[in-house]
């Protein structure tokens, strides 16, 4: 996500203490849906924009490979003439940005807690290397104050309509680690790991991070030599006067570990800028030493509104549902009420819909004062957020996942539901077509081993109805076969598989001769009335006699990722 909850790193321990399991009983695990988190958020309006992102489907990605990455802070570029500009970094996934449904996310958490880890591992092992383009938004130094928000404020984006993202390179992940602990666990990241040409800004969140990452690593990795751990050490040799400490690996030769020295020939010596020596950008500072928040940081609502406005109807509904879920899990009604007050500043309809789900009245506005993060001697009025205003632009297309890449089924997982007596040709033709388009097909049957098809050929089974779950697949297909269809139609697990996939808005295909299996589901009444491509694409249900035509339409449907429109009937009117 491109923004954060807080503007000053000093609030980071408070934020994390609020979101983590509550300290008296360590409940709940890995969830923001509890009182202390929303207590803090409802008193800290600067988090409103981030809350919109967190409550959106962006917070439950389909895959690490299908999510965006961001530098969050504004950084600096510095060129060889020591001229600087501001820069925001983006990673844009070439598979598009996709998410799962919330009900699905909760079920995956139980059925395969390693879902994302496994997905990344398997994609790389199978040669489907995840790729992202590096994007940059460049702002000339002279334009620093041209925006309605402060570039140093980590709760703000630069809308892509104001500064376009230039795609300047490609990241490819092509090799899994050999050892989880040695590499994944011991790796140490740091905002301050920069090279000449990249420098920092005064973003007060980034400033604190520059301190705290090293500080954390000192204890997590057991001392000051963590950069000697193989995964952390640079490819170039390191020469400096840092010595000793727990688990020191380097055997430094010679008498000198200080600078300047003559006994060591003055080595190691400093590098001139022309030789690659790092030199900090000479930003002009003429100021008082002060503990304060700049007034330019207090527009807390405009970009929250921009984000909400930019979502499609199903995405908005998911945010409403998420807020009803999260606040519904908060026991203290006063906190729920306070959050509804904040939401009125983002969007009146959002506030009304969430309030309806919680059985609360919508207040005219937020509780006063809105901001409780005020220094003891400060004037609280100086810490109040600016009143809501219409964002410019009014929407940003880049903020909705509806506008993402939907032209590929590369690496999508498709489950085939089969049983003994299946028509092998209707399995093979569709399987070949999907695999040719880059998808991964798994045969799911009532038992493992092999399925004996109607023509007596044997089809190997990858998963049983017991070991698989619909939530592991992007789409499902039921091939033809009289006996196979009769078995599946009568199998509660098979019918549940289909029902759940429908509920999660996934593409579902069936051979026309297996229609009876779909008729055993709760969505029997939603089956397309004719076999036109248009009918199939309305609800994402493909029923065809001709397997080649079936495969072609099914591929198009899978590429759509989800048919969120299916959720419409369960909506509560505004």
């Amino acid at each position, binding site marked *: 996500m491109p923004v954060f909850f807080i503007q*000053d*790193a*000093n*609030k*980071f*321990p*408070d934020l*994390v203490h609020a979101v983590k399991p509550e300290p008296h009983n*360590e409940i709940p*695990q*890995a969830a923001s849906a509890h009182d202390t988190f929303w207590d803090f958020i409802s008193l800290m309006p600067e988090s409103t924009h981030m809350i919109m992102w967190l409550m959106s489907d962006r917070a439950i990605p389909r895959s690490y490979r299908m999510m965006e990455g961001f530098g969050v802070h504004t950084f600096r570029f510095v060129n060889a003439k020591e001229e600087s500009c501001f820069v925001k970094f983006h990673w844009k996934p070439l598979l598009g940005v996709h998410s799962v449904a919330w009900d699905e996310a909760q079920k995956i958490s*139980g059925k395969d*807690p390693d879902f994302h880890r496994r997905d990344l591992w398997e994609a790389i092992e199978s040669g489907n290397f995840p790729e992202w383009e590096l994007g940059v938004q460049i702002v000339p130094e002279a334009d620093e104050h041209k925006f309605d928000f*402060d570039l*140093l404020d980590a709760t703000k984006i630069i809308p892509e309509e104001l500064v376009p993202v230039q795609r300047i390179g490609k990241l490819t992940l092509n090799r899994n680690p050999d050892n989880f602990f040695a590499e994944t666990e011991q790796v140490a990241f740091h905002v301050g790991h920069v090279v000449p040409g990249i420098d*920092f800004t*005064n973003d*007060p969140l980034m*400033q*604190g991070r520059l*301190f*705290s990452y090293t*500080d*954390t690593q*000192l*204890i*997590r990795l057991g001392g000051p030599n963590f950069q000697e751990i193989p995964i952390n050490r640079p490819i170039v040799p390191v020469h400096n006067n840092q010595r000793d400490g727990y688990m020191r690996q380097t055997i430094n030769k010679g008498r000198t570990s200080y600078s300047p020295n003559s006994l060591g020939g003055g080595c190691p010596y400093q590098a001139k800028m022309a030789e690659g020596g790092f030199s900090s950008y000479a930003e002009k*500072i*003429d*100021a*008082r*030493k*002060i*503990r*304060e*928040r*700049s*007034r*330019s940081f207090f527009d807390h609502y405009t970009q929250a509104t921009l984000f909400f406005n930019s979502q499609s109807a199903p995405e908005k509904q998911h945010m409403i549902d998420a807020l009803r879920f999260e606040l519904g899990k908060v026991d203290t009604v006063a906190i729920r009420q306070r959050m509804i007050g904040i939401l009125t500043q983002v969007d009146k309809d959002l506030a009304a819909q969430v309030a309806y789900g919680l059985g609360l009245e919508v207040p005219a506005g937020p509780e006063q004062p809105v901001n409780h*993060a*005020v*220094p*003891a*001697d*400060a004037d609280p009025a100086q810490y109040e957020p600016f009143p809501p205003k219409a964002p410019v632009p009014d929407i940003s297309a880049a903020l909705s996942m509806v506008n993402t890449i939907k032209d590929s089924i590369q690496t999508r997982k498709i489950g085939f539901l089969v049983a003994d007596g299946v028509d092998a040709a209707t399995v093979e033709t569709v399987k070949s077509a999907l695999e040719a388009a880059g998808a991964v097909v798994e045969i799911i049957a009532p038992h493992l081993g092999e399925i004996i098809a109607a023509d007596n050929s044997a089809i190997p089974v990858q998963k049983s109805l017991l070991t698989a779950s619909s939530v592991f697949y992007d789409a499902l297909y039921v091939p033809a076969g009289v006996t196979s269809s009769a078995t599946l139609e009568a199998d509660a697990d098979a019918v549940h598989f289909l029902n759940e996939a429908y509920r999660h808005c996934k593409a579902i295909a069936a051979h026309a001769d297996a229609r009876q299996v779909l008729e055993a589901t709760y969505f029997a009444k939603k089956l397309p009335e004719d076999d036109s491509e248009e009918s199939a694409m309305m609800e994402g249900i493909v029923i065809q006699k001709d397997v080649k035509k079936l495969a072609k339409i099914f591929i198009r449907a899978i590429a759509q990722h989800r048919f969120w429109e299916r959720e419409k009937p369960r909506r509560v009117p505004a």
Partner: protein
Amino acid sequence: MPDKKKTPENSTENKKIAELAPNKEDSNGQYLNTNTGVKINDDHNSLKAGDRGPTLMEDFIFREKMTHFDHERIPERVVHARGSAAHGVFKVYESMEKYTKAGFLTDTSRETPVFVRFSTVAGSRGSTDLARDVRGFAVNSIQRRVFSTL
């Protein structure tokens, strides 16, 4: 739920609870301090060179808060990382002096304070409670581990 604390026979006080009391801290109605006892005037903003300036290294309040936060985790148990516990008491039905001289098994008037921790074995500290796994059932009496069963 009836308030069991009010009846003497159901008292939840015991010697261990009393022994823990001096370490308990309650912030109710108190000022926010640094660890050296200095009262904090602004817990929301770090010290900067100007309101849009960089954070200053001299900000001892920020450094103390952040350093403590950065260091607040300890390594989890290699096994039995996931657990939940409660205080309570143990009382023997009849003296077992024929077999043992252990005080808590011979003195029928004695209530031995205990702290009991249930756990899974294989999962990490944040893992699910309902993993298919052996469960730990560990009982600590005051100062002494009495027994532990799986």
